[in-house]
């Protein structure tokens, strides 16, 4: 069977082999070009939101006088860079403490172990994580359990009588 087919094609000594090779090369090369043409935009699209850095923004948390000195409270805020259809996922929270008249500390709620939200226990003066029992002191330092790093912090400032914090990417340890 094979030999009959081969006889119907141009034999090698009449330039058949190099023609076949050229056609094969052409087809494969064109396939590669087509893949690149379609593929680069697709890959760029999939990676886009990951590679593009978003500018951080200052968010109003509340009037300064609402926060008592020395108390750690949970504050919720809307991320201004959230997409219009983000819904409740556009919200975020922080643990905010007024240290002095105009100095605030804001902790990121994500435990530095695997990201679960830590709770502030005011009677124990400890941040505690529900997932694997990570514990932090009131200054964010690790008190016990698996967390490898202290709690991350937001930058804070007071502007126009409002406490503000600066958004930041979710920390990935």
């Amino acid at each position, binding site marked *: 069977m094979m030999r009959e087919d081969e006889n119907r094609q141009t034999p090698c000594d009449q330039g058949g082999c190099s023609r076949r090779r050229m056609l094969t090369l052409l087809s494969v090369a064109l396939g590669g070009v087509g893949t690149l043409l379609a593929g680069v935009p697709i890959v760029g699209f999939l990676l886009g939101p990951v590679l593009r850095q978003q500018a951080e923004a200052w968010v109003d948390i509340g009037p300064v006088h609402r926060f008592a000195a020395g108390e750690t409270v949970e504050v919720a*805020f809307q991320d201004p860079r959230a997409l219009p259809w983000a819904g409740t996922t556009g919200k975020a929270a922080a643990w905010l403490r007024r240290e002095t008249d105009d100095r605030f500390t804001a902790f990121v*709620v994500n435990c530095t172990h695997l990201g679960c939200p830590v709770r502030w226990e005011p009677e*124990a003066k*400890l941040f505690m994580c529900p997932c694997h029992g990570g514990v932090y002191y009131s200054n964010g330092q690790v008190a016990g359990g698996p967390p490898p790093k202290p709690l991350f912090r937001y930058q804070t400032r007071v502007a126009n009588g409002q406490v503000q914090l600066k958004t*930041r990417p979710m920390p990935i340890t």
Partner: protein
Amino acid sequence: MNLLRRIVEWFDDRTGLVQLGKYLALHPVPRNVGWSYVFGSATLVALLIQIVTGIALATLYVPSSGQAYASLQYIATTAPWGSLLRGMHFFGGSAMILLVGLHAIRIFLSGSYKFPREMNWISGSILMMSTLGIGFTGQILRWDQTAFWSLVVGAEQAGRTPWFGDLVGRLLMGGDAIGGNTLNRFFALHVFVLPGLLLTVLCLHLYLVIRNGISEPPHPDRPVDPASYRQWYQRLLQRDGEPFWPHAVWRDAVFGTLVIAAIVILAVTVGAPEIGAPPDASLLDAHPRPDWYFMWYFAVLALLPHELEDIVILLAPVVAFLGLFLLPLVANRGDRHPRKRPWSLCFLVFILISIGALWIAGNRADWSPDFKAKALTPEVVGATSGPIARGGEIFSQRGCIFCHVISGHGGRRGPELSAVGNRLTSQQLTIRILNGGYNMPSYGSILKAGEVQDLVEFLQSRR
């Protein structure tokens, strides 16, 4: 009838499909393979249920970070048959994972992965991994608090990848944090990418089942010899085979129907998992847990020594897949019957017991503090005034009870203290409370000296 026959003949002449169908139905298979062979087709039945219920749910579910929750509530409470569909999709998924596991166990036990069916096993491993991936992404689509925080944990785990950790984590989230971009990535994975992969490999898998034939039940005196097996198998079919339809397939029909019935009955009586609170990063009361089929892996990660976490998170799936992949390549000949393969049998039993034990551990989750623990009652404390009463109150109020059990109250994160007065002296207790330990905070800067004294006196009274 003449017209009908002529239509069929025309169709068969133009497509060849009727001839093919006849072969698929009537080709010979080994006789009396038994009920343990039904799990493959049962998995396929579960897959078909998932596809149709999934398509149905997709006509109402809105894959938008902001609206998925509301659309799911609508499906669960208002849409006609919506709650039932949700239940069928959940139990169909659970059934598929359970059945694919049983199928893999049966294949392993009967040595059916050996020559010439190595590629059946390898393609099957890809199918099993795809099924687990579809299960995981499906749970995310519930898009409630559990899904949200499970995804945070997942991104953090992916972030342990060396060099590219940040990139991988953000790839999963679709950006800097979970937001509008995130849900759709998982929707695309759950509906398009992973099912596409699964269906493609499934075609190969089913083709191989026809090509290589259904394996005959193993016999202790009949090891696989690649040089002679194929001819021997063909002679077996000729001599003692029976037509696939209906002689072999009726068992699959029975069991498949039972599977569908079970899915529907469970959907009606038990129902799909409750949809929790909306996916809101400002709601901090969270207890992310995977669905039952991942509970054992959840326990593995929680119980690991901390230094091993990165290695296991990154390498365990790779090693597991490689192990599955290489099995038929390193052990493709020899004895098939389990009685002649004690190591294989022991290994399987070990795996099953381990997964079972880890599953129980995952459900108990002793490593989580119990924030709902109720304060110690006066009966337990044994006093209503004085240092012991004050110490009992400190124990209940200042965080100790979250991690320590006394007389049945409290969390199991740390050692039980019901009889600690018998084990430790006052001095030892004081040192421990002031300094903390590996998992325990130091209370030296939190409690006043008088409070520590009261607490120690209370603990000393626990005998």
